[in-house]
């Protein structure tokens, strides 16, 4: 199954990926990352289609797409 992994060290919680995801499967974590942000996370793995649009908009190269 396709999936994404968010690198919490790089993610600054800007939420742009949430708006880019056509399946609305990305949400923001409610826990601080070590860098002090609420990082993005794949909330609904089952709906990820591995399209990579989230990685296209991510300004911090924090999203790894597996397909």
């Amino acid at each position, binding site marked *: 199954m396709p999936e994404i992994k968010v690198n919490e060290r790089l993610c*600054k919680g800007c939420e742009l990926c949430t*708006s880019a995801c056509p399946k609305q499967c990305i949400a923001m974590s409610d826990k601080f990352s070590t860098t002090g942000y609420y990082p993005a996370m794949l909330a609904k793995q089952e709906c990820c289609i*591995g399209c990579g649009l989230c990685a296209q908009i991510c*300004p911090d190269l924090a999203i*790894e797409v*597996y*397909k």
Partner: protein
Amino acid sequence: MELVNKWPAGLVEMPLRYCPGCGHGIVHRIVGECLEELGIRERTVGVAPVGCSVFADDYFNCDMIQGPHGRGPAIATGIKRSKPECIVFSYQGDGDLASIGMAETIHSAARSENITVIFINNAIYGMTGGQMAPTTLIGQKASTCPRGRDPKVNGYPIRICELLQSLEGASYLERTSVHTAANAIKTKKAVKRAFQNQIECKGFSLVEVLSMCPTGWEATPLNSVKYIADKMMPLYPLGVYRSPEQREQKEGGAA
């Protein structure tokens, strides 16, 4: 499952020190990918500007030089003419390119200098703290026009692609945006083409990228994206303003 988006070889693997939601990171990734995909990384020299992206000299994984504010195209000219086998690009913001460095921008285009310019237009001075830029929109608030840009006091925004379009020397001019994933993909195409033109010795190429500055705009990243779509794009229409093909046709017609 396989990783489909490896870290681009054209970028050094390190965290980018830009604000959350800043468009620089997207364009950095795009340039880094283009350097890798075109196989030019090891013969590319980049010019980092003054501004937030001054640290581009750390980020891009190729030889880099950081120069005075606005002088990128002049520095790139010096490098390109000294080492024509190198691919040379200048990465600049709006204050850098359209204000203090306007002369260098126009004249390197007029000389049809065989360089690639990546122009980040976010309509604000980011690093110095949100002052008015030459591209700041009418009515847009900035720390040096706190009541909003008033044309009677501050004049009108400058449209670089339209301005450079009048120059014979400009070979490729395109305005894109990175406010959505689809636009980021288009931006990558444009950036790649701007490098390809240099490889083919077609002269001056410039890609103007409308980009978010949530900190300078005092907006959330998501509202910044909306601001580009609603406010910036009507003033700065996306599209190709000059292509090498048009230029060749024009030259053919003239002869």
